[in-house]
């Protein structure tokens, strides 16, 4: 007769986390204890029930926008915190002793660069040409109008869902409470939960 497993091993067995020889040993022991087999079956049934009700994986709404927001936040953070990393050429003592020919070459390059006109817009939209419009949302249509009277470009959207009346932009815009991102959620040394 197999010796009974310790509590931890039994718990792992009940939750199907044992493998190999250890699993075989506890299986053999449980074969003589049908109540344990029943308990394991109940655990499996419970997990099946709860996982059929609550998803383990779920695509967040607007997944493309989800990623864009993260991207944007990362760039914002990088812009504020990234130190300016200049090349070693900033070391003035090295600059002063740079060969004369190199200095002259750079002066020439600088002057030439200043003389070059900035590149005009790439082929595509120009001040007077029609812009390209791409509408990814099904059911939405967009048309472009060049308004000479108003001296503006107008894009008219049709088929866009109405914004609910209960949305109050002005209240939110005025009371822009910054969301606090709690810094205790450190990845390496998390704050122990109370």
């Amino acid at each position: 007769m197999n010796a009974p497993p310790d509590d931890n091993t039994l718990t792992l067995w009940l939750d199907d986390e044992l493998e190999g020889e250890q699993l075989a040993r506890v299986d053999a022991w449980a074969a003589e204890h049908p109540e344990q087999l029943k308990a394991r079956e109940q655990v499996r049934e419970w997990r099946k029930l709860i996982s059929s009700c609550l998803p383990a994986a779920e695509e967040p709404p607007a997944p493309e926008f989800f990623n864009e927001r993260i991207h944007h936040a990362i760039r914002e953070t990088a812009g504020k915190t990234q130190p300016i990393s200049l090349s070693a050429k900033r070391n003035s003592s090295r600059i002063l002793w740079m060969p004369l020919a190199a200095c002259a070459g750079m002066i020439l390059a600088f002057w030439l660069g200043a003389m070059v006109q900035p590149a005009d817009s790439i082929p595509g939209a120009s001040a007077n040409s029609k812009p390209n419009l791409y509408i990814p949302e099904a059911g939405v249509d967009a048309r472009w109008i060049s308004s000479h009277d108003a001296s503006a470009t107008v894009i008219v959207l049709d088929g866009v869902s109405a914004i609910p009346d209960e949305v109050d932009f002005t209240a939110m815009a005025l009371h822009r409470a910054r969301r606090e991102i709690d810094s205790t959620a450190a990845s390496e040394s998390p704050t122990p939960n109370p």
Partner: protein
Amino acid sequence: MMRSLLPLILIGTLALIPTARAQQDPGKQVVGKIKVEVYHATDGDPKVAGKHALEVDKNLAERLKREKQTCFKHYCLLGSDTKELYRSYENWAEPVKPSDEIMVRFEAQSAPSSDSATLDLELWLGRKKIVKTDINLSIGKPLWVRGPTWRQGHLIISVSLLSIESQSP
């Protein structure tokens, strides 16, 4: 000898500074400023926009009325956001922050001219990309997007090029 060479060395040093700056990340150079505003336009009662909505400048209102698609009796300002236009990085304007109901993503397609810039521009409404365009914006000539309905009127999203920054090569 060194004395006569010193001016050239100093000029060389000065010449190196723009080069050194370019080493940072030329893409992050600010080449202009973009302003995004959201107006509520209605033929009904303008007060429905909320007591905190601001009145739109009369000249702007007159200008909006000149175009049939944006012609309404009343306008008010719901929000505004001004952001830098980078040489080759995107940026996001959030005119009704902290709400993300209306957001505009923009990025310079190329180096701007003295008074205009071609942008890769996206309008996001309700966390969905609604329209993407390669619009050329000139200073003083905005883009108006007549958008969704809200409280018995329409939202008009205005994107304007405020300024062009002088650029180093």
